[in-house]
Structure formats: structure tokens, C-alpha cells
């Protein structure tokens, strides 16, 4: 038996004929790397035999509650980011409990109500939480059946369910789940082998259930944290220089203190914020304070602005720690064709459409923070350290924000709000960052570079493969006060913790640097750069964006050099059957064999990756048309195929892959954060343009592989790398010009094409 949960006071008990949330906390743990393999703190594994997050939270009542009226509440430590996880998890629970999805209520990450499942990141939600809920539900269904069987005096195997929340005896008697649950305690640990429902019997899983969160989003319902209005709520704005590393010199506090509607100026160390009755007053006060001149504290120079060379120069100047990722050697024939190339990616912004927001309230010694961070439990850890409050006095609750795709300003704004709320006790404080603050202060996706060298033998087999990747850590998720801006601005400041690499198999800058293909003599090294010239952290797919871009570009470079079909060179080096099937499925649907051949303007390209070599498989094929006068590239059509194991909701999977594809096209074709000497110079959508409607593909089609009952594989980030490479490959096919430095912008393409 595991240690008794340390916070018994928060447990509630069986009351009123219902199983009420008997919240079972896992032992506190701060050191464990968990959270979707992207840093963050996370729970300790206490039950290694169980699946998914049951490993750290094995008690069934932590996951599922059944009321007397048959309503079911499911608890997850993961959060909705627009990826549709809410609906997918409801489907998982409904399927495995064999009840209608409409009776399921899902509670997402809340430090007082749900299990700590670390971060919602790394495409781990289905693997961690989906698997846990599936197995927990199977356990609960098993217990319900056993209890009913006892009641009826029949063998448990003979008790069946019919999808309506009732248990059936062989003689036709039935009992409702609610009635049976009332007699049961679910405060028991899951067993590893509770039987799962057979895929052929599925009623809910694998169906295209409409997403539960969408209706409110279409009609102005309260869908986001941004929409919360608490009684007595005040509006705050934080006041900072134009970008990370700058600070304001003597802002005009006196004038602002006299401005109508301003309730308070909060100034602690380097932290400055204004609080007002109305949003508009807060904004005007903030603007007035931001008139002050700013300075940049002495710190390493910002990344050079400009093309691939600038990225490479910046990264190569940093001290590197070399980490061997992969070394294989086997006999192979001599090389007849060798290609060597450098690929780069600049710093990229998350660019959520809604700037980060948080609400905090400090009432009777307890701090409550509503946050859209991917790490609700980490927000609590940060606030605990930052404000010196006991952990049980800090309550963090997730509420949905705009899509975030990694560590944007969500964690920072939550800490900012908590600092302000502590200074204005009693009233809820709503703080939203301004657009320019999001651009200027959020951690960026790191700039990266790779150098590859590969050789083909006479039999068209790859006889050697070298891949070196240079990157800052993508893993700077805050788990304490030093990870957030308010901590760095405190007096005395909490220092920014040193970045650490994420070890393989997940990896960070190294993610997907190890090819899934079977190449002879593969050598992969990660030049880990701990000194960060720009504030960076996780951006959707981490290093996979550039690593897959590099590998899949190089395969086409070799194929072109040797006159091999790009699909053939991939299939020839792939033993993983599911990978082959995904590539083939994309190729078939695309009509790869009969595709139009590159003619100077039109061309086709494809690429493949299995995310982290352990998540979803994804292949992308696309046809582009290049305007040779301007270098503008239009994607005429794109086809993706994805194998994510059993898809909980195939339309949800399609939505994710379509989004990943379009977003990756934007990153790859036009995005780069600009820097000048003392600041980031990308501060709005005109200085950081993203893909718009007239540049999105003519069509995007997603084939979801049917894998009944196969374990869930994370999907959300599978499309980024393959899309990037497919675009470069299609452009090369169309024009004969190979672009290796992102963004593959019209100007660069035009320059490479020349006047004709």
C-alpha cells in the first residue's frame, strides 16, 4: 500500500448515496521529469505496472465519480488547448464505462480536484490521460459489474452493459450505475488488467462526436478564461519595456496615481503594474508609464538578424555540450554519391491570437489563480515559491485560453496576476497582456541549425548518415519562481534556472534527430547550447520541426542526385510496417505515381516522420505552384496521412493535422522573429506576419488510418516536421532550387531562382 495521501483534510467522503470526489493526492514530488516530456515538474510514479497516468495516480476515485442519478464526472490533469482533448477524453470515458457521452462531465486540471498529470504538452494527453481514463473506466465498470453480480447472485462475467448506464443480469433484471455506485467505494487502486471493451463493440470511441466546446465558441458563450467576470473584479496591466531584457527608466508614477479610475500601482523590485476599475483606464495608465525611456541590462548580445548565415553564426558562437544521440556502424558498400548540407530555422513566435490572460484573487490568505497555462500544477509551484505561500494556500485552476502551442506568456501572466492580487487583497484581478507584450516577452521557439552529410552506395542504399544539430534548450518550463518574469523582476530576483536538455527518446533540440529509417553507419550528435541569447522555451514539436525538415530534405537531395523517386528512397529504407503504410496511404490518396512532374513552376514533394519516433506517424504530400517572378509559392493541394493508434475522434485528428499543416506552412514559409541591437523588433502582426487566407492551400485532405484498439499515440505535433520538408521538397521539384534556410520566403526563393 502506498503512503496515505498527505492532504486528507481535502478528501470528502461517501455522502448522500453518491460517490463524491474522494480526491486522492499522489505523494508530493517536485523533482520528477514528467509533463509530456517537455520539462515541468510532475508526479512521482507510484504504480509502475499501471498504464498512462494511473502510474502516478492509481486511485479510481481520482479519475471517476458516479452520482446517484447516473451522472458521471471524469477528472483529468490535462487541459483543453483547442486540440479537442475535452471531447476525446469524454469519448474514452463513455466508451469504457459504456454510457452515453452526454452524461459525462469532464473536469480539467485543477490543483484541488484533479490528478497532477504534469504538462499538457508533447502530444502526451491521449497517451497519459486517455490511457489512464480508459483503464480507470474499465476498472470501474468491472467493479460495478461485480457489485451487481453479487446483488443478483450471478457470476460477474454474466453481467453486461448496453450503453445506457444500466447493468443487465442474464434474466433481464437491470440496475442503474448510480444505484450500484452508491454502495461502492471507488477509493481503490486500479488493477492493470481490467478488461477493455472490444473495438468491434465500440459505440463512442472512434466516432465523430461534435466537439463539446465548439457551440459556445461560435455564439459568444463564456468559453475562455478571458470571458470570466467575477464579482468586484478589477483590471490590471503589467508595465514593461518593449521586450525581454529591457527595463523602464523612471516611469511617471505620479501622474498615473492621479489618473481617474486607477486603483493601485503595484511596484515591487523591477515589477510594475497598474490596477484600475476599468480595462480602458488600466491600458491608458500602462501606456502613460511606458512612455519612459528603457534600457537593456548588460547581457549576451541578441541573435543576429537575417538569413541562415546569421542563425548559424549566432549558434556556433555559443559554447556547446556535445551529446551523442545515435551511433551505429555496420558494413556497407562504398559511397558513390555524397551530399552535405546545412539547414537552419530562425527564432519563431508562438503568436497565439489571444494574448495571455489570468485572473487571481487573494482572499483570506488563499491565492486562487485561474490560468490557461499548460502546466496548472506548475503554476501553483511557481506562485508558492514566488509569494512564499504554503502550497495548500495556493489553488490553480485551468480555464481555456487561445491556442498556445507551447510555452507562451501563459505562465508569466499567471504569476504577474498573483503578484498583483497579493498586493490588492480581496478583489479578483484580471490581467491580460497586450499584443506587443506577448510578442516581446513570451519565450520563443529557439533558432536551430543542423549539418547533415549522407552518402548513397551503388545499390541506392544509404551507406552513411551524419546529423549534427545545434540548439538551445526547448525545455525552460517554469517549475519555480525563477522561470517566470515576475520572479526575475522580484527583489531579490529569483535567477533564471539553467536550461537542461530533455533526454532521448523524447529529446528537445534533439527530438527526431535520430532517423527512424534504417541507414547504415548513422551518427547523430546534439550540440546542446545552454546559453540563450533570446528567451526561449517549448514551441509545438520542438526540435522535430528542423530535424525532420533536415532529414527529409536530405533524402530528397540524395534522391535527386541519384535519380530515385522520393517515395521509393523512403520505402527502401523503412522497415517499420506502420510507417510504410502511412507513406503509402498518403501517396495513394495524393496520386503520387501520376503526379505532375516538376516543370519549373509546378512540382510535388513529400515527407514523413514518426513524431519522436514513438508518437503518431505522419506523411505529407503536396503540390505547389511557384510564381517565378515573385518567388511566391502557393500550395495547390496537400494530403496527409496519420496513424495515431485508435483515433478517439477521427475528425478531431483531422482537425489537428490540418491545423498542424497550415501552421507549419506559416512557420516554414514566412516566419522569423527579428532582432535589433537592444530588443526584439517583432512586436505586432505587421512586423511578424503569418499565413493568411490568400496563401493557404487550395485543399488539405487528411487520411486517418484505422487502427482499432491500438494504443493512443499523440497527434497534435506530428504534422509540423513533415509539412516543412514536403514544402521544401515540392519547391525543389518545381524550380530545381533547394532552399535550406527557413523561412522559405518569396524573396529567398526569387533570389535563388534568379531572373529567369
Amino acid at each position, binding site marked *: 500500500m502506498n503512503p496515505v495521501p498527505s492532504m486528507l483534510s481535502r478528501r470528502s467522503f461517501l455522502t448522500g448515496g453518491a460517490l463524491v470526489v474522494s480526491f486522492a493526492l499522489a505523494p508530493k514530488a517536485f523533482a520528477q521529469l514528467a509533463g509530456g516530456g517537455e520539462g515541468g515538474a510532475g508526479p512521482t510514479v507510484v504504480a509502475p505496472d499501471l498504464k498512462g497516468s494511473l502510474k502516478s495516480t492509481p486511485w479510481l476515485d481520482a479519475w471517476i465519480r458516479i452520482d446517484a442519478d447516473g451522472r458521471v464526472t471524469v477528472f483529468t490533469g490535462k487541459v483543453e488547448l483547442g486540440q479537442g482533448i475535452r471531447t476525446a477524453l469524454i469519448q474514452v470515458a463513455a466508451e469504457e464505462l459504456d454510457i452515453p457521452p452526454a452524461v459525462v462531465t469532464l473536469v480539467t486540471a485543477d490543483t484541488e480536484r484533479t490528478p497532477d498529470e504534469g504538462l499538457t504538452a508533447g502530444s502526451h494527453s491521449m497517451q497519459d490521460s486517455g490511457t489512464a481514463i480508459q483503464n480507470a473506466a474499465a476498472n470501474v465498470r468491472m467493479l460495478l459489474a461485480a457489485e451487481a453480480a453479487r446483488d443478483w447472485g450471478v457470476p460477474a462475467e454474466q453481467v453486461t452493459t448496453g450503453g445506457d448506464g444500466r447493468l443487465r443480469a442474464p434474466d433481464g433484471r437491470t440496475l442503474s450505475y448510480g444505484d450500484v455506485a452508491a454502495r461502492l467505494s471507488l477509493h481503490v487502486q486500479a488493477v492493470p488488467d481490467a478488461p477493455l471493451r472490444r473495438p468491434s463493440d465500440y459505440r463512442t470511441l472512434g466516432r465523430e462526436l461534435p466537439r463539446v466546446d465548439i457551440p459556445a465558441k461560435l455564439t459568444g458563450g463564456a468559453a475562455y478564461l478571458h470571458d470570466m467576470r467575477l464579482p468586484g473584479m478589477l483590471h490590471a496591466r503589467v508595465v514593461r519595456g*518593449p521586450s525581454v531584457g529591457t527595463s523602464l527608466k523612471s516611469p511617471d508614477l505620479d501622474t498615473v496615481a492621479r489618473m481617474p479610475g486607477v486603483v493601485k500601482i503595484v511596484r515591487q523590485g523591477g515589477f510594475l503594474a497598474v490596477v484600475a476599475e476599468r480595462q480602458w483606464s488600466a491600458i491608458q495608465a500602462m501606456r*502613460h508609464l511606458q*512612455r519612459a525611456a528603457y534600457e537593456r541590462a548588460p547581457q549576451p548580445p541578441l541573435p543576429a538578424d537575417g538569413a541562415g548565415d546569421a542563425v548559424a553564426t549566432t549558434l556556433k558562437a555559443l559554447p556547446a555540450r556535445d551529446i551523442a544521440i545515435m551511433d551505429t556502424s555496420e558494413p556497407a558498400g562504398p559511397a558513390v554519391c555524397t551530399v552535405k548540407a546545412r539547414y537552419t530555422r530562425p527564432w519563431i513566435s508562438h503568436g497565439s491570437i489571444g494574448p495571455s490572460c489570468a485572473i487571481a484573487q487573494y482572499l483570506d490568505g488563499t491565492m486562487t489563480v485561474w490560468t490557461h497555462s499548460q502546466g496548472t500544477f506548475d503554476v501553483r509551484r511557481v506562485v508558492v515559491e514566488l509569494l512564499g505561500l504554503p502550497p495548500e494556500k495556493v489553488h490553480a485552476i485551468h480555464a481555456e485560453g487561445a491556442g498556445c502551442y507551447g510555452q507562451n506568456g501563459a505562465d508569466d501572466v499567471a504569476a504577474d496576476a498573483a503578484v498583483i492580487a497579493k498586493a490588492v487583497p480581496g478583489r479578483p484581478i484580471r490581467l491580460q497582456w497586450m499584443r506587443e507584450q506577448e510578442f516581446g516577452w513570451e519565450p520563443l521557439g529557439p533558432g536551430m541549425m543542423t549539418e547533415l552529410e549522407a552518402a548513397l552506395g551503388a545499390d541506392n542504399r544509404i551507406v552513411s548518415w551524419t546529423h549534427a544539430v545545434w540548439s538551445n534548450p526547448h525545455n525552460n518550463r517554469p517549475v519555480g519562481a525563477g522561470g517566470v518574469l515576475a520572479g526575475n523582476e522580484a527583489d531579490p530576483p529569483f535567477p533564471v534556472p539553467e536550461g537542461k536538455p530533455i533526454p532521448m527518446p523524447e529529446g528537445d533540440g534533439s527530438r527526431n534527430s535520430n532517423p527512424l529509417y534504417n541507414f547504415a553507419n548513422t551518427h547523430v550528435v546534439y550540440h546542446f547550447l545552454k546559453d540563450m541569447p533570446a528567451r526561449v522555451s517549448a514551441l509545438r514539436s520542438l526540435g522535430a520541426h528542423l530535424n525532420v525538415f533536415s532529414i527529409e530534405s536530405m533524402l530528397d537531395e540524395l534522391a535527386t542526385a541519384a535519380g530515385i523517386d522520393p517515395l521509393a528512397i523512403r520505402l527502401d529504407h523503412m522497415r517499420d510496417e506502420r510507417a510504410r503504410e502511412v507513406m503509402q496511404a498518403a501517396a495513394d490518396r495524393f496520386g503520387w505515381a501520376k503526379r505532375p512532374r516538376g516543370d519549373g513552376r509546378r512540382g510535388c514533394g513529400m515527407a514523413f516522420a514518426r513524431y519522436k519516433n514513438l508518437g503518431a506517424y505522419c506523411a505529407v504530400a503536396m503540390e505547389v505552384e511557384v510564381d*517565378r517572378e515573385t518567388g511566391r509559392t502557393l500550395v495547390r493541394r496537400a494530403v496527409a496521412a496519420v496513424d495515431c493508434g485508435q483515433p478517439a475522434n477521427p475528425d478531431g485528428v483531422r482537425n489537428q493535422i490540418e491545423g498542424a499543416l497550415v501552421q507549419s506552412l506559416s512557420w516554414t514559409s514566412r516566419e522569423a522573429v527579428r532582432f535589433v541591437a537592444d530588443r526584439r523588433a517583432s*512586436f505586432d502582426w505587421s512586423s*511578424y506576419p503569418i499565413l493568411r487566407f490568400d496563401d493557404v492551400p487550395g485543399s488539405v485532405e487528411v487520411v486517418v488510418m484505422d487502427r482499432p484498439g491500438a494504443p493512443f499515440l499523440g497527434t497534435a505535433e506530428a504534422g509540423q516536421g513533415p509539412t516543412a520538408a514536403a514544402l521544401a521538397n515540392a519547391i525543389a521539384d518545381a524550380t530545381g532550387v533547394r532552399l535550406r534556410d527557413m523561412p522559405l520566403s518569396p524573396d529567398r526563393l526569387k533570389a535563388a531562382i*534568379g*531572373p*529567369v
Partner: protein
Amino acid sequence: MKRTRWTGRTVGRWAAGGALACLVGVGAILGFAHRSGLPASPPPKPDAFPAEMLTRGAALATIGDCIVCHTADGGVPYAGGRALATPFGTLYSTNITPDPETGIGGWSKEAFKRAMRDGVSRDGSHLYPALPYDHYRQVHDGDLDAIYAFLMTRPAATAPARENDLIFPLGFRPLLAGWKLLFLHQEEFTPRPDRDSEWNRGAYLAEGLGHCSSCHSPRNLAGAEETGASAYSGGLAEGWVAPALNGSSPAAVTWTKESLFTYLRTGVDGHHGAAAGPMGPVVHGLSRAPEADVRAIASYIASLSADRAAKAPAMADRPAEAAKTNPGGAALFAGACAGCHDGGAPMMTQGRPGLSTVTALRLDQPDNTIRAILQGIHAPTGPAGPAMPPFAASLTDAQVADLAAYLRSRFSDLPAWTSLETAAATVRKEDSQP
């Protein structure tokens, strides 16, 4: 990119002038009015031209902005079809890809040069001076050859010319002969020995292919550019005022070679507003033209106002006074403009120019200010250029007038504009025309 429109005044003047000139000399010029057709020649092979020639032609075509007028919105580059709306009807640019049937594929080099210099189509008919052949006459022969080579190596596109839709009698092309007889006398460019080679290069490009003065100089009654002392004293383009570039330049800060270079490359520099209206496509082209050529143009244009440096005006920003005389405008500014243009706004903290430096607020006419407010500014250098949203949907004419009055009184020390509401209504009406 927003459709470039040749509205009102410019086209109107030369159209009216053309008719006038015709009446003056109609009898005498009938012989001149007819030019002979030239025979169709087989399109040259793409490899008929050396690579350097194509590179040079591409650069020159960029400076001449051929692609802007000769490409319809979302259309094939150089295939024509862009509508040039005028109060006298609509002109459509033609296909200059080497398609033998609908483009210039059957044009010999001679036919091409005749069109560029004399404004005569291969079939002998006169071309409207929307094609600025008065400027192209000044281009060296070798450069015209290079542009010919460049155009003849573009992919051919089938795109028949659209019928122009002009009111009677302007559709009658021989009338143009009269206009040419009076105004088409320009010679090939000759360098000035007292200037350095950069200046001379700039003058050649600006006067010839760049045709800067076709917008920045006033035009006479007959629609021809005024020259001499009046050259570059300001003109009109598509309803926008093209500010003076000579000593009478209204700029708050005198243009220097460096500031002009930055402006022509990026659409904005620290001391002048962003390129707006028809200047947008110009900057778009120059941002991609050879750097040395753009420096040369900057050097030449800056020299035009060199004598002004001493009398540069003081920059104004008087929020309290302006709010007192125009409280309504001040409230509109606070809610609609301050988020970008007032102190502490992101644009300002990022070192973008303040409104005190914006030439539009210093012109005698409010048109550019009103147009910028109603239509916004489309990023001139492509997606990453400076941009401004349009306010046509949110502000009424009276509110635009209030706002413009406030801006003028706050950010300049010049006399108030008059009839602002009427001006706003006029611009809005022009804008709503198809």
C-alpha cells in the same frame, strides 16, 4: 495588394488635354496621326539572350514597376488586365508576356522600342500616356534591349486585352497624336558632368524608367508634366497628393540620401511617415531592386531639396491645445489612434516615426490624411511592411473631419484645413466606386 486606381485628376487632365490638343491641331496632324504597323516577328527563343542581359533587364523592369500596372489582382504576372479607373471610363493594361496572339510575342525589338519611346503599338495605333513613354524616351537603347529580353523570356500567358471603356470621344486613339505633337519631345538622358556618377545614375533611373516626376510634378492644362522650376513641386496620383520633392517639400524633416534610401527600401524611415497609396507599389518594387540603384535614386532625389535643409520647420506635438479646440477629435484619437501613434504605444516604443514627422499632415490639402484614415495603408514592401487599418466602416465623414482637424492642430503648426467633411465624403464616394 489593393488595386491601384488611376482616379480622377491625373487621368482627367491628360484626357481633357488630349481632346483639347486634338481640336487645336486636328486638321494639320492627320498625317502624323497614322503610324504604320510593323510586321509580326517570331518570338525570340528563351536562350537568345545572355544571362547578364536578363539580370539587367529584370532589375530595370523592377525599377520601372512594369509588373504593377501590367498584372491584374491575383492575375498572371505581366499578363495585363489591371483596371485603371478614371472618371472618363476605365483603361485596362495589356498583356506584355510573349504570347504571340494576345501578348507581345510577335513584337520585334524595334516594335517594342517604338512603343516605349513613341507610344505606338505594333499595329500602328497610339497608346494612352498611362504608359509613361514621355519618360521611357530617356532610357538608353541598351537598357530597352535588356527589358525587351527580360519580358520576352517571361512565360507566355494567353490574355486578350480588355476593351477600354472610355467616354466619347476619348476612345478615338488618333486624338493622341495631337497630344504627342505638343508634348513628346524628351531626349535620351545625358549625364551632367558637374555631378558624380551615382547622382547621374540616379537621375537617369528616376527620370527615365522610374518616372518619379509623373506623379511628383504638376501637370499643365493639357495633362503634360510641368518642367523647369515647377518640376517636382508636387502632383497628384490616384487621388493622393504626391508631395513636392524640390525645395518646397512639405516634409517635417528634410530628406537626406540616407533617409530616402531607407524609405524607398522599407516603406518607412524614422523621420517620415509610411509609403501610402500609389507609393506603396513603388516601394514594393524598389525594395527588391539592386541596392546601388536605389541608393543612386535616393542621391538624386535628395539633391532636389538640398537647398531646403536650413529652413526645416520645427516639429509640433501640442496635445493640450489641440484637445481644447477639438475635444471630439481628441476623444476619437484616444480610442482609435493612440494605441499606435501616441506615447507608450508599441509603434512608438519600437522607434517608428511619430505623427509630427508625417508629411500628410503638413500638406496644404487634407486628402492624404483622409485617405489614410479611410482606406488605411497597405504594407508597401509585402506582408512585413508598415501597415494601418482602414477606418471607413467605423468613422463617419464628420468624425473623420474632426479627427483630421485634431491631427493637423496637434501635429503641425500650419493653418487649419477647411471643408474637411466634404473632402471626406468625396474620398469615400470615390472609394465606393467599383
